């Protein structure tokens, strides 16, 4: 199969200079991703072009950029799927730009940190393992697939007008932990969640869910988060637990024993 030439229009940014569009013809074959195209440009045409990537398989969340006006992952988007003539590439909107296609994600991570994105343990019985039923798992599993790529943040219309808005990713993360049956941090998190620049600025434009490359559906998480906050307000919120108790069952006897600890507990 012969290659096709697709023009990559890249918005280039140098600190202290006006942004400028630069065009690169790229020989594209079926199956080739936008990221592959960028690599080719760097190898054959312009080594000064900057972007971020790492895993090249939609796992690390580094290569988020605006592709033909739509935020997404460069490694997850096939060139010929979107155009056989030209595609435009810009850094993620709603972020400061470091250089070319490299956004500064720090503001997003600051917000992420502020909602305490970790399990906050409540009272639990000593060394008892924390069991979780499949239902309890489904309650938050979808929202835990987030790879922090920032595509949803770039798509959000509220973030476009309010830089302090927490944004889809941190709000989703907050809900993911709130709904975890092992977590007891709702009361700590609701301080920042119930603040200005939070859920009250979201009116389900659902742009975040539209662009999310992992199917996390941040807009869904945020609406469930709102429901929880309202229920909490009227005193009707229930903890996602209790963790199901019950007999651990009789272990099969054909399972070999776990090896001895190599380092002995003192």
């Amino acid at each position, binding site marked *: 199969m012969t290659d096709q030439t697709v023009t990559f229009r890249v918005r280039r940014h140098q600190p202290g200079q006006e942004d400028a569009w630069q065009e690169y013809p790229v020989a594209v074959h079926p199956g080739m991703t936008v990221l592959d195209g960028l690599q080719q440009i760097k190898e054959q045409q312009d080594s000064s072009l900057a972007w971020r990537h790492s895993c090249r398989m939609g796992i690390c969340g580094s290569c988020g950029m605006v592709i033909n006006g739509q935020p997404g992952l460069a490694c997850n988007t096939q060139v010929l799927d979107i155009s056989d003539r030209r595609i435009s590439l810009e850094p993620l909107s709603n972020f*400061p730009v470091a250089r070319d296609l490299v956004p500064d994600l720090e503001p997003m991570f600051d917000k992420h940190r502020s909602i305490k994105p970790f399990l906050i343990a409540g009272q639990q019985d000593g060394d008892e393992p924390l069991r979780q039923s499949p239902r309890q798992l*489904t309650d938050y*599993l979808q929202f835990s697939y987030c790879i922090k790529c920032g595509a949803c943040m770039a798509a959000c219309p509220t973030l476009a007008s309010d830089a302090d808005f927490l944004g889809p990713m941190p709000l989703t993360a907050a809900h993911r932990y709130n709904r975890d049956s092992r977590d007891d941090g709702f009361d700590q998190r609701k301080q920042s969640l119930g603040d200005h620049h939070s859920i009250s600025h979201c009116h*389900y*434009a659902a742009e975040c869910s539209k662009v999310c490359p992992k199917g996390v559906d941040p807009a869904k998480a945020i609406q469930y988060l709102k429901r929880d906050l309202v229920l909490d307000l009227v005193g009707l919120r229930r903890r996602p637990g209790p963790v199901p108790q019950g007999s651990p069952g009789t272990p099969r006897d054909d399972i070999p024993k776990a090896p001895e600890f190599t380092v002995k507990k003192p």
Partner: protein
Amino acid sequence: MAVSEKTMRPSGILRWLGGGRRGLEGYLYVIHRISGLALLMFLMMHVFFTGVRLLGEEAWSGLMEMANNPVLHFLEYLVYVAFAFHAVNGLRLIIIELAFGIGPPDEPVYPYKGSIHKQRPLMLIAMVIVGILIFAGGFDLVAMGH
């Protein structure tokens, strides 16, 4: 935590428009805000103009005389249109914001069909109702001359 003072640079109100690439719900978000602002502007004027009735029948009839022209009738109709949209879409938003009609959390399986698809029928029904209301009001204005 005010991020804006540090580094974040919002891309501005033009991003509300999204260069024609927003989904339907994205545009409803924008129209909902604009119609809400318009209704508030009207409400402020409304409070003062209808206050004239306290001055008696004469003053009121004078005001109504003045207001009785096609341009104002049309503007009034626009207020009604904004109301019809804001009301029905607002009801839809209240339903959705309390997490009804968007489906339960679910394992994402490609191609992802998320909450957007789940709430589409609700959104479409809401828009049909808005359409009917706007038409009924327009008919009232044009054909019945009110």
